[in-house]
C-alpha cells in the first residue's frame, strides 16, 4: 500500500495510487524504474569515464538533499518513496558528461524544489520534474550543454566524435541536401568496428534473405556507441530495461506506442522535405535512435503523475508528444525538442483527462439533448 500522504477531513488516510490490493506501491514502482535505468547509466559511465559518474552523483545527491529539505518543511517523510533518487538519476542521465558539476546540482534542485514541491510534492506537479530541470539548465547555460565527450569505444579514431549525431546533422544547416547518415559520414563521423561486423552479419544472415540492406552506422546508434548524454546513448540497454517495466505493468504500451507512431509517421512523411528529398523520404530509424528519444518516450513521458489516466487519453497524449517532437526537431531552434514536446503535452493532461473520463460501469453512453 502507499505511503499515507494526507489526512482527509473525515480523518481517513488517503494514499497515493495505485490503490488496489497487491504489493505494489509508489516506492516499489519508483525503485523498480530506477533499477531499470541502472544498466543504461552504467553504460554511460563506461563510455564516458568517471566524469559521468560524478555528474550522476551530483544530480542524485542534489535531488535527495532537496527532497529531504522540502519534505522536512512540509513535515512529511517522502525520502523512502524513491522518487527523488529516480528524478535525480533521470536528470543526470539526460545531461552531457562534460557539464560543470553545478549544472546537475541546479537542475535537480529546480526539478525537486520548484517543479515538484511548489505544487505540493509527489503527485502534485503538473510537469515532469526531471525534464523541467533539464530544460531549465539548457536554457540557462546553452554553451555548457553543447559540449560532449568522445566515447571510449571510439577513442583513437580521427574525426569529430565529440558531437552528438543529431547535433552534427542539425548543424549542417538549412541547405543540407542529404540523408542524416550521409551527412554524418561526410562530416567525418567515425563508424566503429563493432558496427561494421554486426551490420554485415545482419545483412548476410537476417536482412539479406528478406531483401533489406542496412547501411552501416545504425548499429552504433542503437547500442550507444556515440557521443551523447550519459543515459540516452544506448537504445539497446534502455529497451532492455523497459522489458521489466512492461512485465511488471509499471507502464502500459499506450504512451510509448502512440509517441513512436506519431513521431515516426511525421518523420517518414515530412522528414525528407527539409533536405529536399521529397515526401516520404525521412529517416525514421536515425531520428528514433538519436537525441534521447528512447529515454524520453519510455521513462519520462510515462511518468504516472503527469500523463493521462485512461488508455484513450494516453494515446492522445503520446501522439501529440510525438508530433510535437517532430515539429520542434525539424523546425524549432532549440536542441531540447523531445523534452519540450513532453512538457507541453504535460500541461494539457488535465484537459485530456477531462475528455477521456472512463464510463461508469453498467451505464450506457447517453447523449445529452441540450
Amino acid at each position, binding site marked *: 500500500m502507499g505511503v499515507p500522504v494526507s489526512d482527509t477531513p473525515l480523518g481517513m488516510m488517503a494514499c497515493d495510487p495505485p490503490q488496489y490490493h497487491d504489493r505494489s506501491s509508489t516506492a516499489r514502482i519508483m525503485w523498480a524504474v530506477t533499477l531499470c535505468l541502472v544498466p543504461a547509466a552504467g553504460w554511460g559511465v563506461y563510455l564516458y569515464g568517471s566524469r559521468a559518474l560524478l555528474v550522476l552523483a551530483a544530480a542524485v545527491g542534489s535531488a535527495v538533499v532537496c527532497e529531504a529539505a522540502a519534505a522536512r518543511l512540509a513535515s512529511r517523510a517522502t525520502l523512502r518513496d524513491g522518487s527523488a533518487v529516480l528524478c535525480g538519476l533521470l536528470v543526470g542521465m539526460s545531461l552531457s558528461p562534460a557539464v*560543470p558539476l*553545478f549544472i546537475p546540482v*541546479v537542475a535537480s534542485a529546480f526539478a525537486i524544489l*520548484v517543479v515538484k514541491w*511548489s*505544487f505540493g510534492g509527489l503527485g502534485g506537479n503538473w510537469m515532469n520534474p526531471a525534464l523541467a530541470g533539464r530544460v*531549465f539548465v539548457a*536554457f*540557462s*547555460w*546553452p554553451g*555548457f550543454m553543447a559540449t560532449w565527450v568522445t566515447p571510449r569505444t571510439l577513442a583513437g579514431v580521427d574525426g569529430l566524435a565529440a558531437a552528438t549525431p543529431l547535433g552534427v546533422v542539425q548543424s549542417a544547416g538549412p541547405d543540407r541536401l542529404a540523408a542524416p547518415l550521409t551527412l554524418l559520414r561526410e562530416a567525418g563521423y567515425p563508424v566503429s568496428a563493432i558496427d561494421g561486423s554486426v551490420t554485415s552479419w545482419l545483412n548476410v544472415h537476417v536482412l539479406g534473405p528478406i531483401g533489406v540492406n542496412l547501411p552501416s552506422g545504425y548499429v552504433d546508434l542503437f547500442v550507444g556507441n556515440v557521443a551523447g548524454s550519459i543515459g540516452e546513448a544506448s537504445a539497446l540497454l534502455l529497451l532492455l530495461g523497459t522489458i521489466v517495466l512492461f512485465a511488471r505493468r509499471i507502464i502500459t504500451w499506450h504512451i510509448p506506442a502512440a509517441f513512436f507512431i506519431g513521431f515516426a509517421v511525421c518523420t517518414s512523411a515530412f522528414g525528407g522535405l527539409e533536405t529536399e528529398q521529397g515526401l516520404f523520404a525521412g529517416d525514421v530509424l536515425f531520428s528514433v535512435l538519436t537525441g534521447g528519444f528512447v529515454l524520453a518516450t519510455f521513462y519520462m513521458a510515462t511518468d504516472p503523475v503527469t500523463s493521462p489516466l485512461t488508455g484513450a487519453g494516453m494515446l492522445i497524449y503520446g501522439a501529440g508528444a510525438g508530433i510535437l517532437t517532430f515539429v520542434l526537431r525539424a523546425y524549432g531552434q532549440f536542441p531540447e525538442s523531445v523534452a519540450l514536446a513532453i512538457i507541453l503535452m504535460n500541461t494539457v493532461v488535465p484537459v485530456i483527462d477531462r475528455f477521456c473520463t472512463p464510463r461508469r460501469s453498467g451505464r450506457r453512453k447517453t447523449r445529452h439533448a441540450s
Partner: protein
Amino acid sequence: MLRDLTRGLVRENAVFVTLIGLCPALAVTTHVVNALGLGTALLVVLVASNVSVSLLRTIVAPRLHYPAFLGGAALFVTVVDLAMQAYVPELSARLGIFVPLIVVNCAILARADVFARQVVPVRAMLDGLGFGVGFLLSLTLIALVREILGSGTITLFAMGDFDGVLVIPRMSEHPVQVMVLAPGALLTVGYLCALFSRSRGRTKAGASGREEGT
C-alpha cells in the same frame, strides 16, 4: 489619512497582492534601471491622475467618468513620455512601448475607480503616492532578483566615471539566463507573491506558492 498613504505599499500592493499592472512588472524587469524608470514614470502619472480624477469627480457626469479618467491619464502619460525622451533618451529607448502603455495600466484605472473618485484630492494624492511607491519598490525587487540571478549585474544610472553597471564577480560568469527570459519573470513574481501572502498571514491550503495569478 496615513492609511491612505500606506495602503498601497504592502497591504494592498498592486503587483504582489492585487496582481494588477503585471504586464510591465513581467516585461521590463530584466534590468534594475528599467524598473526604476518605469516605476517612477508610473508614480508620477498615478499621483497626477488620482488628483485629476478627484477634481473631476463632481464636475463630470458619472457616466462619462471613465472616458474623462482615461483622457486625463493619457495626458499625463504623454507629458511623462515626452519628458523622458527629452531628458533620459537612453532609458526611454530601453523602455520603449511600455511608457505609452502606462495609459492602460490597470493600476491607474483601478485606483481612479475604486478610490480617487470617491475622495477629496489630498487623500487621492496620498493614495496615488502610496500605490506608486509600492509599485516602484515591487518592480525594483523583481528586477533585482532577476538581474542578479540572470545576468550577475545590477544596472543603475551612469554617473560620471561610473558606467552604471555593478558586476557581481562570480555570478556574472555563468548567470542563470532563464531568469531574464519570460519564464524567469513568472517564476520570480510567483514566488514573491507567495512570500507576500505568507508574510501577510493568509496562507490557506493551496492559496500560496502557485504561479497561476500571473
